[in-house]
């Protein structure tokens, strides 16, 4: 008789269609996710504070990296302004000067060239410096013929430097100067800032993992009896783990949402003064936001780190709870 019962129950289980089992599995996940969210909302103050800490920890690196992105965008505009000034030997004739400019223009890494004769240079100088009288006192034009070379935008700094050295060796060229150094310095500083930002991001990510881990550890402690009873009546490890993993993921998502609000809110606060600055300097928009990609990335980071934290807590503490 017992055998009959057994076979009957195992037959019903086996005959359950695959779709039904998948649905049960989905229902399990939905129950765990909704249950975890319910527990979060029941202890609103405590979970709010945890989410707040996570929000700040996620917002800081996001804001830092966003600011660097903005800075880089503007700096790349300046980068395109790189130019090589070739000061020629004084005795170079205008024809030779023109010939040299055309020869240089043939090079693929050169976008355009401009020639400035000593007379033009002097005129420009007068105009700019408003020192007509002083210049008039010169009996000889001291300015050399000049060829200005504009490299193709986006040419790497190293290539531009090599080009400068090479052009400087031409016999007609007295001196070659590259107006790039400050851009390089800026780029070096930004590279360093980026490294620092990532370092801070990694440390704060660690903090997020630890905060979530500790929160989940407490949640496990609070639900010890439930875990024990669930193990007693045949709950699998995955079943017991699931609500805690979802809890961690929810915390991460809440932190991510809060971080986006903080970053975008901060941008809003800065937008007034920045707009004025942009007007004065006639640049484009100075500060672009996270954008959809950035927002999703912050949320993903939050969820991922939250899962990480709860995974660590679950791994360390669930196994220790065995039915007594």
């Amino acid at each position, binding site marked *: *008789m*017992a*055998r*009959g*019962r*057994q076979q009957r*129950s195992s037959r019903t289980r086996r005959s*359950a269609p695959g779709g*039904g*089992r998948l*649905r*049960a*599995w989905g*229902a*399990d996940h939905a*129950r765990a996710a909704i249950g975890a969210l319910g527990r979060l909302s029941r202890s609103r103050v405590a979970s709010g504070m945890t989410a707040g800490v996570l929000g700040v920890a996620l917002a800081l690196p996001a804001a830092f990296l966003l600011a660097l992105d903005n800075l880089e965008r503007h700096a790349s505009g300046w980068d395109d302004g790189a130019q090589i000034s070739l000061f020629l030997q004084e005795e170079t004739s205008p024809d030779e000067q023109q010939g040299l400019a055309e020869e240089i223009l043939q090079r693929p890494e050169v976008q355009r060239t401009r020639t400035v004769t000593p007379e033009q240079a002097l005129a420009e100088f007068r105009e700019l410096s408003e020192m007509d009288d002083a210049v008039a006192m010169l009996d000889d034009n001291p300015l050399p013929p000049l060829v200005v070379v504009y490299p193709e935008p986006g040419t790497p700094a190293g290539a531009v430097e090599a080009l400068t050295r090479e052009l400087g060796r031409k016999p007609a060229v007295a001196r070659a100067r590259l107006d790039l150094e400050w851009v390089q310095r800026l780029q070096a500083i930004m590279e360093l800032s980026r490294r620092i930002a990532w370092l801070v991001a990694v440390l704060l990510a660690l903090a997020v993992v630890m905060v979530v881990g500790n929160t989940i550890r407490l949640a496990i402690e609070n639900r010890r*009896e*439930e875990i*024990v*009873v*669930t*193990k*007693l*009546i*045949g*709950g*699998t*490890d995955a*079943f017991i783990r699931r609500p805690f993993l979802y809890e961690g993921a929810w915390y991460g998502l809440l932190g991510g949402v809060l971080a986006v609000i903080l970053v975008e809110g901060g941008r809003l606060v800065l937008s007034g003064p920045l707009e004025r600055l942009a007007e004065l300097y006639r640049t484009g928009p100075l500060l672009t936001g996270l954008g959809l990609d950035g927002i999703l990335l912050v949320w993903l980071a939050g969820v991922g780190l939250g899962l990480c934290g709860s995974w660590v807590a679950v791994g360390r503490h669930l196994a220790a709870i065995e*039915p007594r």
Partner: protein
Amino acid sequence: MIEFDGVGKQYPGGHEALRGLSFRVDPGELVFLTGHSGAGKSTLLRLIPLLERPSRGQIVLNGINLARLARRRIPYLRRRVGMIFQDHRLLYDRTVYANVALPLVIAGTPAADIGRRVRAALDKVGLLHRETAYPVTLSGGEQQRVGIARAVVTRPPILLADEPTGNLDPELSEEIMGLFEAFNRVGVTVLIASHDLGLIQRLGHRYLRLSEGRLVGDTLNDGAGG
């Protein structure tokens, strides 16, 4: 159904709770386990759903050698063995209904079937009208019946009960034992630990006697009132 062969259990610290235990319970049997306090009754029961592992000997359950059961298979073993405890082990922040539904939820029973099966189990133990109550509002006997409903709701072929009437007066005790007899009549194999030898002898089923971890008696006690 349940086979012990030379089973010994030594707890960490050296105490030998069970020694050289061999017996067999056939499918559909109802067997009592008796002996004074500390004789090893709880220990014996806990070995069956692998809440403890034996130190010696082997246990075969429904043809499965428990020593060879992988750790990850243990939950599935426990789903086939209904356990009832003296202290009920209910979840006090959940309703009677939720407590009884838990094994079904764990087993991934489709939501549509859960309500029907929970009510069927509650009906069997006579608590259908209390499904929305919280366990603290129930008497000891009622809580024990919730525990029984939870153990049988998945229709396991084996029921184990550790002092299920330990805190109850004689009348309620007989009522609870009556429930076990009813499950046994529909084919469930039942093993009940109880130190109440008087009650056991009145009920008239086979009983095993433990003393200091050894099996000292296996009485058939077929004649009612024995």
